[in-house]
């Protein structure tokens, strides 16, 4: 991944919807509504969650009868850190705040206290997400209003981003290792898939999954 680039300021800020702070509140509302509804689809149909396999797996653990604790704590603390950082650096990190906080952490909390309809019903999910997004947008709107240009601190955002990106690199090899323990044909498929993707300069995890699944089709394993 390339180094984080310093944002450039070479355009005057106009006060229309597309550039003003209140426009930001509108897009966080829309984004949160959309991804929260995505989690609703995941809950109902098993597809459509807007996050990494590893993070969705935490929510899945709860849905399948385990504890929602990991998903709730992970999502909520990411949300908190990102809101704070987002208002200070000018870019709200979409992945941490909305994809993980709103779409994984909050549903985990809601499901663990029994507020199932808010997640299960598509319309209610859109509404819940919109309210959460509106709240996040407004918090940042007001933090910016009161603290603008007071601080140049990044609160270690670069450190966290670096670690986050490094994590993604581990997924490919981990998938191959896991495929190798599932069965030999699946392990072979996964290895070949990953090697081909690497040769084509594509991210390895995709190839590892596709290879494993193709071999799994011909040589099925039981859960």
């Amino acid at each position: 991944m390339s180094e984080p680039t310093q944002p450039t300021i070479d355009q005057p800020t106009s006060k229309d919807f597309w550039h003003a702070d209140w426009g930001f509140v509108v897009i966080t509302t829309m984004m949160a509504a959309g991804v929260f509804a995505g989690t609703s689809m995941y809950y109902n149909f098993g597809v459509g969650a807007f996050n990494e396999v590893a993070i969705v797996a935490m929510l899945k653990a709860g849905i399948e009868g385990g504890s929602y604790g990991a998903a709730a704590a992970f999502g909520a603390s990411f949300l908190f850190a990102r809101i704070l950082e987002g208002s200070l650096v000018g870019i709200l990190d979409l992945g941490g705040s909305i994809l993980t906080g709103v779409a994984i952490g909050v549903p985990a909390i809601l499901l663990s206290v029994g507020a199932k309809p808010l997640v299960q019903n598509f319309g209610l999910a859109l509404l819940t997400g919109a309210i959460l997004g509106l709240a996040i947008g407004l918090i940042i709107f007001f933090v910016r209003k009161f603290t603008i240009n007071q601080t140049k601190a990044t609160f270690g955002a670069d450190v966290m981003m670096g670690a986050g990106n490094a994590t993604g690199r581990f997924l490919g090899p981990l998938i191959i290792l896991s495929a190798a323990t599932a069965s030999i044909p699946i392990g072979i498929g996964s290895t070949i898939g990953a090697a081909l993707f690497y040769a084509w300069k594509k991210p390895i995890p995709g190839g590892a999954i596709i290879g494993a699944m193709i071999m799994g089709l011909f040589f099925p394993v039981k859960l």
Partner: protein
Amino acid sequence: MHIIEILIQSVIIGALVGFAVGVGAARMFTAPKTQALGAFRTLGEMNAAEGDPASHFSFGLGFFFNAWASTVGAGAFTQDVTHRVLPNWAAAGLLVRYKDKKIIQNPKLMGLTAAVIGVVVVAFLNVTSSSIPESLQVTAVKVLVPAADQLINLVMPILFWLAAIDAGHRSGMFGTVFGGLSAMIMGNAVPGVVLGILVGKGVDEIGWTRTTKIILGAAIALFVLSGFFRGFDLTMLQQFGLGTPSWLTNLHGVFTVK
């Protein structure tokens, strides 16, 4: 019919998310003056494509295949759909049409283009992956779930922890203490290490101001509250061989939701 329901919901979600991604990404180029929604890595990668539509498109395509595999396998889009596929494909589309590098900094055009792309991408991913055979899904679960578990429980905590230590003495110290506490209280060290980096680097950069004190206070409150609600206090007293006072047990009884 499931497929129709999935298709309709996907179109709504794709339009909402796509539009927000496009506007948010275009605003990144003028941050922090305009508050943006996106990620530093997205900004870096979009700058790296240097206004070449083919670069933007193929970069997005690589991650699209990855996202597709992950959706088929585990129902998870990966964050790459919003971070990489949608913004880069919207940029590619606009650059082909307008041939002006600055066009991707226009929130209106980016928003509308990304909304259209969002509808197509989200609908495609959801519809194709909800109609695959059972044996494929079993394989995917068998392969992905253990890999994901190891990633969450081992790789992520260690990487964040080492990053905290490398980032300086203060973030290393806060990261270590909060990380250990978080592993015990929340079951995963990552949230604690992240908060440790936040506090440590914040103090490094601006000192012990009111802002950093509030952050530290909020972090401690988060630990205390989640410790209480997860029954950490009772378990700890028990494991130290101490009795649990009845008022504490009663207090827990008041808040038990299950």
